Each structure stands twice: as structure tokens, then as C-alpha cells.
């Protein structure tokens, strides 16, 4: 197992869209958006099987998500987390005076975290904010 460095983007996926309308308190939301889509070559470099829990760390925070093989590749060196609290735990909040955080193009490193749990969406935000 190794640590890899990739460029992170976030955005909509149709599964994430269905999950938010179905209820963000449900586990289906975590299944849809608590993931990181990686190119097969990056998964190989990471030395992880598909669907392994990983910790993704940026300068702005870290989060545990499930590493899955991308269906919209190849995109070696690029990783995708669907928009939602998991992605937003680590994206770059700098707006450079435009009002818009930098949701795409955040350098991150990924480590295997096989025994760490992936939190539910509401649970994750409450924990990070220190709210019960």
C-alpha cells in the first residue's frame, strides 16, 4: 500500500442527484456521494482493491470515502468525488474575490484506511461542526 497524489474535482453525478432527492439522511446518499472515483492506474499505484475505504487529505481537511473505479475514464492523475459534504470537507474554500470556492483542481493525497468508517452525510457535517 502506498500514498498517491492526485488532482481532485467534484461535481454532479446522476446517482448523487437521485440520492439527494431521496433523502440526505439515508445511507443511499453515502453510497452515492461518499466515494472517490479513481482511474484504474491510480488504484493500482495505491495498491488497493476496488471499493476500499481510503482517507483523502488536502491542505483544508481530510475525509474517509470509498475508492471506486471510475466509469467515466480514463483520467489518470485526476480523482472525482461527487458534490456533497464528503467532497466539501477537503475542497479549497478560497474564492479569489469571486465569491466562488475552488471546487475543482485541489491537490490531495490518498491513503488506504481500510478499518475507518465512512460517516453518513448529516453525521459528517455535525461532527466536523461540533454539533450533536
Amino acid at each position, binding site marked *: 500500500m502506498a500514498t498517491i497524489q492526485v488532482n481532485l474535482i467534484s461535481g454532479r453525478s446522476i446517482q448523487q442527484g437521485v440520492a439527494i432527492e431521496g433523502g440526505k439522511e439515508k445511507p443511499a446518499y453515502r453510497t452515492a456521494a461518499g466515494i472517490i472515483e479513481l482511474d484504474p492506474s491510480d488504484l493500482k499505484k495505491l495498491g488497493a482493491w476496488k471499493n476500499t475505504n481510503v482517507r483523502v487529505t488536502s491542505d483544508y481537511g481530510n475525509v474517509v470515502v470509498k475508492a471506486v473505479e471510475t466509469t467515466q475514464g480514463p483520467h489518470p492523475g485526476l480523482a472525482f468525488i461527487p458534490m456533497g459534504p464528503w467532497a466539501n470537507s477537503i475542497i479549497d474554500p478560497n*474564492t479569489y474575490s469571486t465569491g466562488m470556492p475552488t471546487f*475543482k*483542481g485541489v491537490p490531495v493525497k490518498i491513503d488506504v484506511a481500510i478499518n475507518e468508517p465512512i460517516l453518513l452525510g448529516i453525521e459528517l457535517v455535525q461532527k466536523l461542526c461540533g454539533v*450533536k
Partner: protein
Amino acid sequence: MTKTITDVICPFCGTLCDDVEVVVSDDGKQLLEVYNACVIGTEKFLHSQSKDRVTRPRMHQPDGTWKEISYDEAAEYSAQMLAKAKKPLMFGWSSTNCEAQSVGNEIAEITRACCDNTAATCHGTSLIAIQDIGLPSCTLGEIKNRADRVIFWGCNPAHAHPRHMSRYSIFPRGFFTSKGQMSRKMIVVDPRVTDTAKMADVHLQVEQGMDYELLDALRVAFKGEWLPDVVAGIPKEKIREVADMMKSGRFGIIFFGMGVTQSLGKNHNIDAAIAVTKDLNEYTKFSIMPMRGHYNVTGSGEVFGWQFGFPYAVDLTRGFARYNPGDTSTIDLLVRGEVDAMFTIGSDPGAHFPISAVKQFAHIPSVCVDPHLTPTTGVSKLHVPVAFNGVEVGGNCYRMDNVPIDCRKVVEPPEGMLTDEQFLIKVRDRVRQLKGVA
């Protein structure tokens, strides 16, 4: 006997499909089936019927539990919070109708709030670019009937606007596009081989964050000037091929999305995209259009525009409207810790803002008006559930091409639930009393 309601408007994305059919029970209280909508829209209609739905306002208690309160008590808390705050922030508005937005703006004016919509995290930078150099645009109907060159730049409608291509941009047979998709050339620019890119005639797999360079290279290619061998990961031959393809069309359209608005460069990426459109109009007819996300985010921009003069990031703290993205925009206000009360409606900043901004509003007085349970309701002091817009209440909304459409009510909300507008009117009337405004 069930009833089928036709021509229903889908309140999910900015495409505002207006051909949805909904089957309701005879008494009009239950929604049973949905036809024609995409998988996300269907889920939105059906989720309104879930049995575990919260139907009364709730106060968050210090031990993490919730206490049910009445709508009057909720309106009192909201009004007191907004009236007392020095710099309240009223955020959201994109999943509610224009009527409710207008009442909200009255409250903002009385309480001297900052108000902003979800353009803050989607097309805010596009709005800056539009103010910089304008927007040669058109309606989706013109695209359906005329467009033979369709470019999706940094957007993935197969996932985000699932029926966009089948209703307007690629597949429909229009007046001058009688062969449907065969009449059109489709170009996709995206750093991933998205499901949209897989359908394209040409996919430019641009290096992430290098959109400005590629747009500029296209401008050079239109004029036939010198290009380096590779720009943004794309060989110059490919760039020239795409440039010629764009120039040779009779009517072209560039749709752009978060790929350009959220990457570094931000509004300058859109500046370049609009400049490409302007250049192309020297050879043929070309338009450009942002792919708006929430179903009525465009409407929120319109309502802010006609009432305050600015489409988002409006600051009323001095008693008149100011607009200065970076200063008066929500994320910056929150990250700098300037806001002392947060009123959220029709959006979920808890899930879609950077966590550093969410942490700020989790510890100040806060109200979240939302029919769903969300990360925002999870960290707000007061959660006010309301009727689903576009399902249990109608109202005006704007499609991504700025065409206003009236949503339809198809089913009754649960007994005793208020709509966004009804709740906001209660808050407004109480705020007027507290502030001594006639």
C-alpha cells in the same frame, strides 16, 4: 379512480421539463406515479409522499434532540433572530418560487440583511463575466429548431440535466434540424470521458483547469494564426479541426457548466468563452448559455435583479443595495465570520459549502426552511419544513434560458403544512412590527 395530470413542470433542474405526467389519487391527496420525468425528477415527486416526512417546525435542543413547535412560534423565532442581528444572511432561494423570493427580499430590506442565492456555488462567476462583456444568448426552442453545432464545455448533462439533450439540444427534430442528432455536430470539452463525452462527435479531453488556454487557442485557430504543438493537452491539429467545425455551422451554441465556473480562472474562463462566441459571430451565428442547476436559480437572479439591481451577493446592511463579489458574497462573509444570523431557504449550504463556511453558521442563530432533512437542517437551531415547491404548491420559475414558466400544484401538502410564501409572510409581518415599519 385515479386522475392523470398532464403538462406538469418538473422542479429539479434548470431544464424545467414541462411534459411530465403525474397520477394522483381521486381525492388529490396522494401522488402515485410519475411519467416522462428523468430518474432524479421522478424521485423528487415521489419523495414528497414519504411516510417519515417531518411536517411541523422543530427546535434543536442542546442535547441533540428536537422539540416540535408551531408555525407561529417558528415565525416568531425567525423574526426575532433577523430583527436583532447586526448582519443577518438570507441564503438560498433557488428551490422556491419567485413569489416567495419577493417576500423574502422585503424581509431582507427591512432587516438590512445580506442576501444571496445558490449562484454563489454554481454560476456566480458566470454572472460576473456577463457583466464584464455581455452574453449573446438565445432560447432553448431556438436551439432545438436551429442549432447544428452544439458544444458542452465543462458540463455533463447526461448526469446533471438528464433530459436536456433529448428535449432541446441533441436529439429533437426541429424546423431546420429535421434529422435530429444527425443534423448536429456535438463537441464535448471535459477532463473526464464523461457519459456525455462518450456520445460526442469530438471530445477534447482538456487538462483540468486549462480551459482558458484552450478557449484562447480556439480564437487563434479561427484566425488561422500560429499555435504551439499542444495546448492544454490537445494537439493543435485537433484544435484546428474543432475550430473549422464550429465556423462551418449555420447556428451554434456553447453550453457551459461548473467545469469552467469552479476551476481556477473562474470568471475569466467565461470571459474567454463569451469572446469565442463573439468571434464566431463574424463567420456564422453562435450563442452561449450557462447550464443552470437548481430549477429556479435563474428566477432568483431575476427577482434580485429587478428588486435590487444585482443578481446575487447583495448586501443591504447600509440600507441600500451593494454588490461586490468577494466582499458581499456568502462564502466570503461566512469564512470571515462576519455574519451573526443565518436564514436558509430552498437550498442546502450544509452539504454544498466548504466545511469552513458551514462551521461558521453552525454556531450562530439559524433557521432552515426546507421540506427535506439535510446537513443544513442538522446544524440549524430551527428547522421549518414546508410544502414541496412545484409538487404541493405552484408558482413562477425561470428556465435556464430566462423563460418564465408557471409551476403546477399536483397534490395537497400534508394537513396543516405551510408553503414557503405563507411562512415568509408570517415572518415579514412580525418583522414589520418589531422594526416599526408600516
